[in-house]
């Protein structure tokens, strides 16, 4: 109200100044009158301000340590911070100013939740086929997550590796679409099986299984720009979700590569989850993927127009007794993947799988084993086999130390016996626990 009156007065004054000279006397009288009005408004304003300040002070005084909140219907007084010293003298506000939300200063309120996750890897032993450095900061992942507007949220995961920076994921999720569609748009890890959807720092191992390395696009997996639509299918107590995804068609080093705009790749996934008891549950999935592979590209011309089809099934058994959930748990998991890759030398039908079990035997300790077996996608006659044993220690929710013994029998080289170790650490916002 007050500012409006001020504005009206100012506007009126301006019009009067511009009024014709013959009305000068009248104008002078009016100007005086307006001046009086302005003075009055200023007095009222100051009085009101003083009253409000007094009220604020009394609220803060009365609330002290055992602030009983809220008269009925009145929201609790916002928390306040003191204005930094000096600001008042510079014409800024003085005394406590309100802070909305949790941040320390007002400007940060709308910043996304930020976190940085470090993944430090070390390796000892001999591996002549697929060597990794003795020590490396394998990945530094920066996560930015926030609600965009009433209809969507956004998640960005920027990955800084030894070979540069990449957007591991950056997508918008529409949370409120009619019809129960959960739609994601952006660059994301495709819903092909389980391991492909997981970021490095939530894997129970220091590495990815042989089958994902050989058949599903290496470490990055199917991770591309596209659109994902997922819908729940009513099935009583069973959680049944169907996902359909369309991607540009560039994934992994040699999985999918586009040479034309129409070379899109597709992923379909069906997931069924059921609670057997409150502590035990099973999770099954089947996946399909299709896209153009780079086998037929010669001198940047796609002569072969070859495609790859992937089929996968996955099964997970989880056990976690609720009343001791922070001390004991078990996850058993397996994924089997078939690859049908067209090449100049004919179609390569490759198959691979892993099976793993991870047991938490104390609040901070996990032990696990994994068996690996996979053909190579581009030469199905080459079969690699491997096995791993892991031991993980969690100093807190925000860091973990892991050791992994890994033996790999390569089809085309000497067997590798390696001791891998990993430090992972997370700073910033508390992320969601993986499930």
């Amino acid at each position, binding site marked *: 109200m007050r500012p409006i009156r001020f504005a009206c007065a100012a506007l009126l004054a301006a019009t009067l100044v511009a009024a014709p000279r013959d009305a000068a006397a009248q104008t002078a009288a009016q100007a005086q009158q307006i001046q009086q009005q302005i003075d009055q408004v200023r007095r009222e304003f100051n009085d009101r301000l003083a009253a409000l300040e007094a009220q604020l002070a009394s609220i803060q005084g009365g609330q002290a340590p055992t602030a009983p909140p809220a008269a009925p219907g009145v929201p*609790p007084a916002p928390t306040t911070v003191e204005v930094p010293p000096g600001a008042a003298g510079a014409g800024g506000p003085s005394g406590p100013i309100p802070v909305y939300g949790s941040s320390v200063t007002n400007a940060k309120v709308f910043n996304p939740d930020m976190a940085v996750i470090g993944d430090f890897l070390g390796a000892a032993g001999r591996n002549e086929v697929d060597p990794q450095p003795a020590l490396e900061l394998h990945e530094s992942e920066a996560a930015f997550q926030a609600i965009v507007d009433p209809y969507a949220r956004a998640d960005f995961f920027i990955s800084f590796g030894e070979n540069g920076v990449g957007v591991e994921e950056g997508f918008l999720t529409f*949370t409120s679409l009619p019809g129960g569609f959960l739609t994601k748009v952006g660059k994301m890890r495709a819903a092909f099986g389980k391991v492909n959807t997981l970021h490095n720092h939530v894997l129970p191992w220091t590495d990815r299984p042989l089958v994902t390395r050989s058949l599903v696009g290496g470490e990055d997996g199917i991770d591309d720009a596209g659109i994902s639509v997922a819908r729940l299918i*009513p099935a009583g107590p069973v*959680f049944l979700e169907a996902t*359909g995804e369309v991607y540009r068609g560039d994934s992994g080093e040699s999985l999918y590569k586009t040479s034309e705009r129409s070379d899109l790749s597709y992923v*379909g996934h069906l997931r069924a989850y059921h609670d057997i008891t409150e502590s035990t549950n099973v999770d099954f999935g089947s996946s399909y993927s*299709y896209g153009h592979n780079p086998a037929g590209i010669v001198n940047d011309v796609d002569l072969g127009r070859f495609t790859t089809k992937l089929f996968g099934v996955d099964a997970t058994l989880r056990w976690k007794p*609720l009343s*001791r959930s*922070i001390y004991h748990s078990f996850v058993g998991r397996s994924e089997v993947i078939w690859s049908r890759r067209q090449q100049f030398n004919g179609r390569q039908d490759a198959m691979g799988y892993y099976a793993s079990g991870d047991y938490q035997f104390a609040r901070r300790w996990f032990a696990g084993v994994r068996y690996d077996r996979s053909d190579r996608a581009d030469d199905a006659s080459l079969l690699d086999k491997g096995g791993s044993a892991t031991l993980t220690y969690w100093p807190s929710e925000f860091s973990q130390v892991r050791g992994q013994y890994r033996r790999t029998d390569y089809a085309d080289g000497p067997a590798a016996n390696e001791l891998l170790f990993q430090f992972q650490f997370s700073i910033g916002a508390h992320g969601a626990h993986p499930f």
Partner: protein
Amino acid sequence: MRSLKLLLVFLLASPVVASAQGKLNVVTSTEDLAAIAREIGGDHITVESIARGYQDPHFVEAKPSFILKLQRADVLVAVGRELEIGWLPPLLTQSRNGKIQVGSSGYLDASLTAEILEVPTGQITRAEGDVHPLGNPHYWLDPENGKRIGKAMADKFGELRPGDRAFFQQQLASFTSRLDTAEKRWLSMMAPYKGTKMVTYHRSFPNFAQRFGLDIIGYVEPRPGIPPTPQHTLDIMNEMKRQNVKLVLVEPYFDLKTPQAIGRETGAQVLVMPPSVGGVKEVTDYFKLFDYDINLVIDAIKKSGAK
């Protein structure tokens, strides 16, 4: 290609799950909130809780079966203060339910009108453990906060079901007056034991201690979310001996090994004290939670002669 088309057809053809416009479908993150919702909503609502009372509410798993519950919910009531930060956000995102997203009319953060203790001031870092920057989220263990949560729910339910508004307010009035009576009884029961010193495992009981005049002098955990260390256990035992502390309260989801070692060393009684409805079988509603906890504490004080 063809299978993808089939999948899309399948996706589009499956019927939309419509939420009934009958009873208000309330989902709460914990059983305490569910218990209060039942008091307020009576038979005009359906209530389901995601976490169980005997489960550590910080570490609930984001199971897909919870997505099914949230998908059908008209209201989601959360404890707030980042208690559910590890598991509720991914469930909400996948719920496909615009009504209950943060900021929507069907999302109720029960902490907004409650009295919150231990709000950290100044610099906070994770060197202090898994601190809750917005204050201690275990605020429901004070009947005064119970009334405030009840009021917030009655207002919210009435806003979403205007036809039942009077009913919810009436239920609230009944709940509040019954709670007033019970609180008087609880306070008089506890009055002789005012100032009794105790140790708790996690910082789950500050509101309870404040309301009923108990003095929590330390914690079995060295820092929130960090399991006991030998040095800290030694320190807390020495402190308990020095101050003659005879009670150790442990939430049902923590290991009893360290508390029992402390009990043996100091002669203190170790009590498994549920901070939540459903924490033990007998505690089936909000009133029984205080009945149980207060009787447990008083019996132990009498037995140990601690004061």
